[in-house]
């Protein structure tokens, strides 16, 4: 946002921009703040894992085998005697990275694509949206397998592949938002002020479409994490010994009758992240809605 600061007026009225005001409102929402704090904690742990993990993630103790939580292994060990806490920490690195990076890719492409299609309209819109329809129609699995075959398997490609699929829905949501917003008189007023289409989209349209975008984003992150787990399970994503929450959960599910902790702890990590995301997302949406502020 391009906002001008004005010391002279600030003496009269506090607050300076949409984002500043949003932060003031978000600060009052304890649940959203808690969600944000938990997410931040998760990210910091993920970044520091190589230095703070209690064990090396390749270290096996086949004699120990699967053991329940103990003083030496807080979350227990898996059937190869690997420390589960270490596994969950390393898995979090992959899951969070996939979740955030793939969603960011989807957000960037989807919002831009949808905004342009919706704002320009006409033939441009028709061509852009037919392309989205074609990509929708492609079987996702074949698309991924093709990518893997052509480019070989690597984690960056995984981010890209997931992001490239998730942006389609984002583009559609954004387009319908823009179509209704561009009919509004304040957009017409912006045109008559002489703003360029790019500025109008950035300053007048996107801020007013943020609500649905944020909600959809908080829904996309978990679905991307689950998609990664699914791909990894099929052997198309992360390969052991590297791991992710999704993989840990699917292995844990196989042995949940004998060793329930192998399912419970990775499951808790994922659930906690999703809850935090939802609380933060809801809070952000409310905070960015200036109309709800004074009630």
């Amino acid at each position, binding site marked *: 946002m391009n906002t001008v600061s004005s010391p002279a007026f600030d003496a009269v009225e506090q607050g300076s921009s949409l984002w500043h005001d949003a932060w003031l409102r978000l600060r009052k929402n304890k649940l959203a703040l808690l969600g944000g704090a938990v997410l931040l904690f998760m990210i910091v742990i993920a970044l520091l894992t190589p230095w703070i993990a209690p064990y090396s993630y390749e270290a096996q103790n086949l004699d120990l085998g699967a053991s329940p939580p103990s003083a030496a292994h807080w979350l227990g060990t898996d059937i190869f005697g690997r420390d589960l806490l270490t596994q969950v920490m390393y898995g979090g690195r992959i899951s969070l990275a996939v979740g955030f990076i793939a969603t960011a890719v989807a957000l960037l492409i989807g919002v831009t694509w949808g905004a342009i299609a919706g704002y320009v309209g006409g033939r441009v819109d028709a061509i852009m949206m037919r392309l989205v329809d074609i990509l929708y129609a492609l079987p996702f699995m074949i698309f991924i397998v093709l990518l893997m075959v052509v480019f070989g398997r690597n984690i960056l490609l995984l981010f890209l592949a997931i992001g490239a699929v998730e942006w389609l829905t984002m583009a559609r949501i954004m387009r319908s938002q823009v179509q209704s917003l561009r009919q509004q008189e*304040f957009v017409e007023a912006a045109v008559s002020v002489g703003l360029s289409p790019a500025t109008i989209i950035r300053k007048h349209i996107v801020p007013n479409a943020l609500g649905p975008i944020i909600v959809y984003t908080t829904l996309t992150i978990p679905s991307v994490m689950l998609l990664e787990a699914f791909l990894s399970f099929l052997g198309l994503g992360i390969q052991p010994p590297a791991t992710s929450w999704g993989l840990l959960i699917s292995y844990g599910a196989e042995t949940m009758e004998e060793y329930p902790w192998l399912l419970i702890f990775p499951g808790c990590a994922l659930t906690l992240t999703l809850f935090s995301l939802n609380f933060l997302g809801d809070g952000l949406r409310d905070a960015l809605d200036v*109309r709800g502020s004074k009630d």
Partner: protein
Amino acid sequence: MSLLKVDHLSVSFVTRNGTNQAVDDVSFAVEPRQITAIIGESGSGKSVSCYAMLGLVPSPPGRIDGGSAVFQGQDLLSLSESELRAIRGRDIAMIFQDPMTCLNPFMRIGDQLIEPLTLHRGLDKKSAQARATELLDEVGIRDPQGAMRAFPHEFSGGMRQRVMIAMALINEPKLLIADEPTTALDVTIQAQILKLIADLQHKRDIGVLLISHDLAVVSDIADQIVVMEQGKVVEQGSPQAIFDNAQHPYTRKLLAAIPSGQKIADAVAADPLIRIDHLKTWFTPNEGAEPVKAVDDVSLEIHRGEVLGLVGESGSGKSTLGRSLLRLVPLTGGQIDFDGTTLSALQGKPLKQFRHRMQMIFQDPYASLNPRMTVYDTLAEPLLQHNLVSKAGLDQAIRELMDNVGLAQAFVRKYPHEFSGGQRQRIAIGRALATRPEFIVADEPVSALDVTIQAQILDLLADLTKEYGLTMLFISHDLAVIRQIADRIAVMYHGKLVEEGPTAQVFDSPSADYTRSLLAAIPGAHAA
């Protein structure tokens, strides 16, 4: 005996922010065979008081604090929901402001009309249909047989309101409550609907309670006028008494706010700022479809320093003409010259740079301001876009703008939703003036506002026109408003210009038939 007697009615809304007294000790009566009008601005409690006695105010947050509403010997407020339901629609019928939202778009008119007859009266289908056709004929629908088979979207707004009236009358009510029944309609249609209501009331011997914000509209047909302000009845009496001898200051304020009088045309030399030559703006809804000729071959000159009033009903193309002049819609043909520049030929960057010379004020101040931008950002945008002020001078420029349009400077950091309609329109006017334009298109700038606010904004516009040396195209459906502010008048009908001339000439000796019918439809013969 009165048909309906409301005594000391009080209604409040209990919200988290406290209790809001919407209706405060209100008393009035509706006599049989008379039209009683309740007049007030938005928030005056005029609708709430009528809805409350019919049990139509949701509770919570609504709460009836006391009073009585005696209808045919029964206190409506003491009845149970099921007893009220039996009275609503049968003895008391309602018609609403927007006829479109009250009709089911997926049901034929005929089916919607006979439903109450077959359900509540136990009529068989055939006689119900005969009865409904008769009623459609009575409310002035041509070809009632065909109308029975039509869907609501096939009718114009005025026709739909006639259907709604037929629907209200179908159970032969004794009291008809009409809530702003003509506000969404064009002036000529408004006159017809009001006449219809008055005729039906005579013929059927019913009492009518008419709710309106427009004193001029009701003055022609009401027998009794009740003026409400902030939940209280401040004055009531016959139209004669109200217009000739208003007691309460608020009533006098309302009367003074009725646009009246005629602008004394400034002696300006006919120096055209804008020359419109055979302008065409057509829209093609679908490829291959017949184009909608919104503006069709219009030639017109707008003189430097004048206010040109552009009159027409909805669909006449008057708004499209205004938007065409500002190049907000693509042109189909013709030419626009602006002070020697061929405006219609400008494209891209030169057009963007030209835009600061011409600005627009929109009808709906709720839609024309970005809800996520503060007043400061809204006013700063045009100034910065055209590099009209340095960053250091920005605060000062915004301060001046706010002063000029009558906004307190303390509001600078507030968002649009924190303002009233009139204040929002002031912000929108400030934005339009920010670039110091020579030419402004004002598209129905006061029609979404309450009458007293409307008068203030009109005064403001008149002052600013002088102060800024503006040339203005003032678009309106309201001839009384146009007469007050315009030097010259142009009349549009179906995309064409049918009349053009100095204000006095158009009012005193109109040349086109259409202009004559518009003039005849001006409400408020008493008021003038």
